[in-house]
């Protein structure tokens, strides 16, 4: 029976279970806009699909050099960040006590007028009374410039808490660094060693690269106390004891030196290995390079004479005693290296017990490194010319590469540990060679890079811009930002005797010093995008106390005013007096500039922008716009026209395209010049942003093949970099195995020279400012009684959460809403602890409660947890019963405030069990108890 094309059976079926008509080709979006992701600082390019006036879908931009189309767990959750209920919606003025979270909503006019009122007074009296500190922003080229214009030296960004010691180690050694400024030659490396990386700034690029490594069959060794994440897919896991990497690495160096498996040719050409070091203990020049009148370092030539180490073609001895005309002795750097690291104290047997790595493993890895570096040498048939004009028919590389991050930098010995890593790389000849580690543009820069920090007493004056940028690299005590009496001049005491080489400033010292009026009281603390009351604080409880501390005499807060810009209701909001609500990343212009931390790669410079893809639905304004408006209202010279009108009336958008830092150099390097055909340097192009948008919001310059390697000594590259304004002059960059500036500080500590440290700092500087890397136990360990605190407590970043940002994200907090304390199963058994038990973890700074999870893949002396999951009750607009408050914890509560490089990790005593049967009932627990 057929009815209307269907037989009865079909009709019957259709009635009971009609076939679904699946629309396999729905229209996805009304419009697609390109911009740059900001769910973390990795700067991936994204395509935002807009539909019905909202955001439908965010995906990776396949053409983008950073992420090549992929997107991470955070990036794909951007929608929920954008629609987060924790977004701020109006400027706020505090009405209750600090910390109470009582505010009154105000209009923008009032907000900006208030800020300008506070700041203009300071600027007219003493600009130092403004401390301007920023966090995970990518606007440091603007914020730093603004601070300079304001005239305060008290500016720094998140780097101080992040990896300043690692960045400094690299800059003084290589003119580049791990951090965000270099990466392995992912396509060619054959042996890759990864030290202490869980996620890193190069989030997607590392994932893409590790996948490539494995596919190619290159060997990947992860050195990390914990085997999760990237370490999970490593061929080999070295579960090192925290803080001992320096020993392990120097033991590798020991092995390689003993076996003569080092690249002497490379050392001769590109490093200071042959430079002579004066050996005259007790004299003012001891440990400095022997130099000629022109200031050029000298080497010992084949004939036993002295020759300039800068001269091309000179043949220099690698070991040998030189007697200087004045009779003093000098030896090549390499000889000092050989003598130091051949010492048996670096023998595998001797470091093994401390590192928790069998000597046999250390020996084998040294062997693998040697085998790969010297047995699997790569030659790329590309002719290139070195700095001296000599032509080379090939680019030769040793395919061993290293990457390191916070696992190194988070320990107080991180600077020297990182130097040890660079030493190893240089000895192998693997810096910027095929298969080795490569500089990412705009690096290399001179080692260390150019400008010195400004902020000395004479450089600060009321109503006047600072004489230079507040952050930079010091070469000798004369460059310190101290007064005549040697007292610190910055509120964070960066570049003082307490922390001479504080390249990025010391953000984590700010609040304590400000509250203590040490070295001087400030008036206004201005913070932007930094959760300084919480996860970027050490000893969080103390930090929150300091923020609310009052002067008993006046009843006023010790930090009188706090202005803060955040986009969300973070912990720090409650501690500020004036809140400037920012937009989300999809609602504003941003500029990822070559003047800051751009998206350049080893194959060439690049930068990018964010463009607003959707209009804010709240009364919020992009912070940069507000800052520029404040700059104009304060009359900061660079932000007003000669007749006093705002110079960038369109806000940041105008600034990005029109501002020139020095002639021809502005925030963006692409499509400069009136016609947009200049790259790097060129006149401002009013239509520059259009060009960026048309190109997917980024600019990438591909270096020609002959400039891709040996950039530190590659004539063509050095030329290009100079033309583009990346380096001041086309001079070769000599890798500094021996870091002379450190010795200058050491000499001062030994009582040499006009500027000397106060006595309390002498011994420390003398010990730690060693121009050659060495290992020492992290300070926090030597301070703590190891018997009382037998465990190391460390954190890792979860791949799907960015610092404190993402507990407000409905999707991401489902993945990680409570952090556990992970402990080695064997350690736990010895302590009588089991899965899900609640324990106390304590350090000198305090004690917190945590729930255990046992695992095998963690060093037995180590406990760890995911970073920044625990939240302060009441923050982030989460309900009061949220697990982030009730069960999560923040390890920072345990980090005792400590100065120096990076921040130390705490060491925990044997935790005692707390069995909360009712709370975690679980039947498992009862079963276990039975």
């Amino acid at each position: 029976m057929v009815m209307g094309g269907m037989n009865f059976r079909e009709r019957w079926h259709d009635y009971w279970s009609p076939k679904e008509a699946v629309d396999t080709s729905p229209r996805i979006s009304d419009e697609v806009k390109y911009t740059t992701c900001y769910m973390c600082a990795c700067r991936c390019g994204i395509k935002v699909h807009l539909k019905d006036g909202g955001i439908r879908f965010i995906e990776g931009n396949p053409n983008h050099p950073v992420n090549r189309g992929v997107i991470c767990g955070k990036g794909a959750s951007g929608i929920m960040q954008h629609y987060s209920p924790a977004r701020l919606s109006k400027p706020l003025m505090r009405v209750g006590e600090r910390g109470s979270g009582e505010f009154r909503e105000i209009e923008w006019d009032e907000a900006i007028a208030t800020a300008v009122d506070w700041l203009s007074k300071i600027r007219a009296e003493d600009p130092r009374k403004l401390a301007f500190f920023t966090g995970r922003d990518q606007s440091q080229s603007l914020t730093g410039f603004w601070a300079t214009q304001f005239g305060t030296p008290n500016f720094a960004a998140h780097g101080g808490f992040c990896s300043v010691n690692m960045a400094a180690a690299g800059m003084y050694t290589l003119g580049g660094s791990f951090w965000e400024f270099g990466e392995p030659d992912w396509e060619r490396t054959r042996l890759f060693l990864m030290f202490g990386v869980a996620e890193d700034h190069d989030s997607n690029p590392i994932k893409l690269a590790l996948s490539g490594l494995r596919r190619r069959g290159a060997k990947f060794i992860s050195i990390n106390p914990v085997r999760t994440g990237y370490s999970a897919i490593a061929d080999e896991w070295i579960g090192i004891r925290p803080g001992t990497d320096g020993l392990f690495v120097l033991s590798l160096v020991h092995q390689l030196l003993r076996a003569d498996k080092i690249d002497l040719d490379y050392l001769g050409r590109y490093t200071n290995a042959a430079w002579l070091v004066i050996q005259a203990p007790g004299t003012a020049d001891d440990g400095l390079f022997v130099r000629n009148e022109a200031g050029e370092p000298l080497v010992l030539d084949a004939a036993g004479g002295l020759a300039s180490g800068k001269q091309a073609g000179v043949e220099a001895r690698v070991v040998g005693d030189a007697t200087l005309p004045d009779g003093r002795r000098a030896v090549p750097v390499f000889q000092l290296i050989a003598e130091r690291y051949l010492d048996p104290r670096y023998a595998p047997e001797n470091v093994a017990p401390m590192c928790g790595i069998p000597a046999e493993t250390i020996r084998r890895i040294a062997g693998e490194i040697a085998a790969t570096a010297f047995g699997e040498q790569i030659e790329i048939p590309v002719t290139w010319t070195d700095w001296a004009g000599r032509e080379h028919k090939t680019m030769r590389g040793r395919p061993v590469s290293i990457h390191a991050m916070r696992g190194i930098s988070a320990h107080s010995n991180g600077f020297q540990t990182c130097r040890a890593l660079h030493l190893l790389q240089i000895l192998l000849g693997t810096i910027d060679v095929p298969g080795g580690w490569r500089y990412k543009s705009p690096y290399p820069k001179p080692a260390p890079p150019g400008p010195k920090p400004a902020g000395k007493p004479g450089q600060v004056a009321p109503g006047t811009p600072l004489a230079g940028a507040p952050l930079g690299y010091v070469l000798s005590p004369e460059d310190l930002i101290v007064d005549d009496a040697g007292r610190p001049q910055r509120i964070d005491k960066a570049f003082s005797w307490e922390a001479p080489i504080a390249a990025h400033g010391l953000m984590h010292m700010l609040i304590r010093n400000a509250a203590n009026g040490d070295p001087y009281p400030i008036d206004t603390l201005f913070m932007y995008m930094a959760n300084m009351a919480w996860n970027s604080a050490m000893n969080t409880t103390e930090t929150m106390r300091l923020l609310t501390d009052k002067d008993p005499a006046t009843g006023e807060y010790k930090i009188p005013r706090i202005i803060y810009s955040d986009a969300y209701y973070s912990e720090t909001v409650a501690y500020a007096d004036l809140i400037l609500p920012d937009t989300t990343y999809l609602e504003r212009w941003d500029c990822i500039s070559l003047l800051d931390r751009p998206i350049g790669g080893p194959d060439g410079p690049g930068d990018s922008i964010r463009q607003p893809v959707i209009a804010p639905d709240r009364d919020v304004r992009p912070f940069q716009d507000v800052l520029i408006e404040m700059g104009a209202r304060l009359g900061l010279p660079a932000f007003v026209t000669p007749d006093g009108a705002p110079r960038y009336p369109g806000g940041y958008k105008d600034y990005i395209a029109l501002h020139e830092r020095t002639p021809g150099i502005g925030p963006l390097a692409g499509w400069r010049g009136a016609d947009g055909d200049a790259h790097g340097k060129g006149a401002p192009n009013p239509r520059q942003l259009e060009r960026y948008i048309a190109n997917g919001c980024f600019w990438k310059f591909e270096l020609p093949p002959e400039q891709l390697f040996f950039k530190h000594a590659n004539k063509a590259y050095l030329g290009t970099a100079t033309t583009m304004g990346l380096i001041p002059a086309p001079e070769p960059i000599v890798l500094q195995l021996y870091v002379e500036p450190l010795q200058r500080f050491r000499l001062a500590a030994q009582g040499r020279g006009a500027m000397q440290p106060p006595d309390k700092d002498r011994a420390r500087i003398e010990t730690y400012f060693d121009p050659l890397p060495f290992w020492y136990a992290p300070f926090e360990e030597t301070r703590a009684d190891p018997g009382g605190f037998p465990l190391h407590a460390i954190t890792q970043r979860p791949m799907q959460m960015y610092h404190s940002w993402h507990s407000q994200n409905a999707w991401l907090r489902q993945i990680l809403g409570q952090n556990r304390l992970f402990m080695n199963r064997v350690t736990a058994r010895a302590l009588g602890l089991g899965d899900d038990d609640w324990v106390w973890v304590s350090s000198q700074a305090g004690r917190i409660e945590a729930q255990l999870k046992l695992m095998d893949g963690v060093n037995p002396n180590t406990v760890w947890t995911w970073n920044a999951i625990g939240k302060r009750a009441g923050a982030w607009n989460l309900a009061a019963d949220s697990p982030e408050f009730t069960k999560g914890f923040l390890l920072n509560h345990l980090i005792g405030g400590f100065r120096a490089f990076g921040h130390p990790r705490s060491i925990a005593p044997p935790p005692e069990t707390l069995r909360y049967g009712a709370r975690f009932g679980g039947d498992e627990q009862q079963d276990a108890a039975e």
Partner: protein
Amino acid sequence: MHPTFSIVFFTTASGAGFALLFLLGLAAPLGLLPESSGFGFVALATAFVLATAGLVSSVFHLGRPERAWRAFSQWRSSWLSREGVMSVMTFVPAAIFAIGWIFFGVTDGVIGLFGFLAAICAAVTIACTGMIYASLKPIHQWHNRWVVPNYFTLGLMAGFLLLDLIIRFWTVRPVGTPLLALLAVLAAWWSKEAYWRFIDTTSAPSNVASATALGSRGRVRMLEPPHTQDNYLLQEMGFHIARKHKTRLRLIARITAFVLPALLCLIALIGSGTVAAIAAALAVLSAAVGLVTERWLFFAEAKHTVMLYYGADAV
């Protein structure tokens, strides 16, 4: 598995109802029961009410109860659908049988045939209910040869206990029903014990090693779940009952479902009049408690293979 009350009630109530219907449809046409239409009314009404209440309760468990009718469509593959179809279908011969018996006092002949038909349908319905669970391979505690016999014997036990109680209002001293009820209780007890022994001594062929296909690399255990709080799968399938509770509840089930009803049946068998009737009534009450407990345990003790992805080593 999460013991949802509507489902626990559904399976016990409709199990008892259909079992009673089965007994009535089988025994009445054979003349083994009082012919009184009053008895027919009370007995059939009890069966209908229990069966219907169970079914209605099961509908409440649905996310979209208003679409429940759609569940009749897939009898070719789905035991749930078959159960739905059969349970409704059972009402057709059962209704004819009931009309014949109650209104016309007839239980034999054509009406008797409908009685038989209703009995068969009721039995098939019970089998279908059992099969819903027994067919689910991911749940070892359900996917085994004891589940359908359990549903049968437990149902029959409930049916006999009910029948024995009801019959006492018409028959002074029934011998068959208490005796059969006793036997049914013992049979149900035996099958339940066999079931428990089975699930206590065996576990699913699947374990965390096969679930992850990582077994060849060494002992596998969960490090981190995909979400730190429970999701639908854990809410639905992550129910875990502590050994202590399990033992206690089994004891309660044993006593209330089997020991007491058996003893009470014995009293009902030996005793007479009010004492026997009270014993029969108590047997029903006790069994009701016992069966609900047993059914609750049937869910609570069932472990789904999905838990292998959430920390269980075996299920």
